[in-house]
C-alpha cells in the first residue's frame, strides 16, 4: 500500500491517546482494561507500519515477530487481569474503580 508511513503512525498515535483518555475518564474497571488493550493495539500498528517501511531488508520482519509476542503477552495479561477483577468483585460487589480505595492514606 502506498500510503506514507507517517499517516499510519499518526493513526497509531490517535488511537493511543484515545486509549489513555479511556483509562482516565471511565470508571468501570473492565472498560479501563479494554482501553489498555486499545493502547497495546495501537503500538502493534506502529510496529507493523515500520516493518512494512523497512521491507525488504532482512530485519524488517522482526517488527511482525514482536507483534506476535505482544499479542501473546496481551492475552496472558488479560487472563490474569480479568481474574483479578472477578476476585475484587467478589469482595466488593463492584467494578467501579472509585470504590476500590482501601489503600487511601
Amino acid at each position, binding site marked *: 500500500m502506498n*500510503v506514507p508511513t507517517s499517516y499510519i503512525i499518526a493513526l497509531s498515535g490517535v488511537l493511543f491517546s*484515545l486509549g489513555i483518555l479511556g483509562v482516565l475518564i*471511565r470508571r468501570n474497571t473492565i*472498560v479501563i482494561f479494554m482501553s489498555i488493550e486499545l493502547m497495546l493495539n495501537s503500538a502493534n500498528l506502529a510496529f507493523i507500519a515500520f516493518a512494512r517501511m523497512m*521491507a525488504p531488508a532482512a530485519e524488517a520482519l522482526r517488527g511482525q515477530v514482536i507483534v*506476535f509476542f505482544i*499479542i501473546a503477552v496481551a492475552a496472558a495479561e488479560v*487472563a*490474569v487481569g480479568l481474574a483479578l477483577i472477578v476476585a475484587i468483585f*467478589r469482595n466488593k460487589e463492584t467494578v467501579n474503580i472509585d470504590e476500590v480505595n482501601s489503600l487511601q492514606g
Partner: protein
Amino acid sequence: MTTDLALFLGIAAISILTAVSMLLSRDTIYSALFLVLNFLAVATLYLLLNAAFIAMVQVTVYAGAIMVLFLFVIMLLGTSHDTLGGPYRWQLPVAIILGLGLITELAVTLMARGESISNNAASVSEAFGSPASVGKLLFSEYLVPFEVTSVLLLVAMVGAVILTRRGKQEGL
C-alpha cells in the same frame, strides 16, 4: 487521491470512530463490541500492510479470544451500566486537555521529522509477512522468547485459577 489513500482513510475513520464510541457508550457490552470492530479494522489495515499472518492472529486471538473473554466476564459480573462523573470531576477536563496535548506533540513530531518515514513505496515479495517467513524467524532466531512465551501463558493460566479460587470454607 489514490485508492490506497482513500482506503486507508476509510479504515482509519472506522477505527477512530469505533474507538470513540467505545469510550463514550454507557453500556459495557456495547463498548466491548465496538472494540471488536476496532480490532477488525486494524486487522484489515495489517493485511494492507503485508502482514497477513499477524492479521489472522489478530482476528483469532485478539478479537476472537480476548474480546470473548471480556464479554464473558462482563456478563458474569452483570455490570452493564456505567456513568461518567463521580468524584474528582476536575480530572475530566484535565485529561482531555492532556490528550489533546499528546496529539499535538505527535503532530509536531511527525511534521518535523515526518519526511524520513514517508517513503513507503518499495515493493515486497509475496512471502513477506507470510506465515512461513514469520515462522521461520520465530523458530530460529526467536526460539527462546517463543518458548518463554509458552511458559508465560502457563503461568497466566495458573494465576487466573488461583486468583479466582474461593477459600476453603466456602467450598469449591
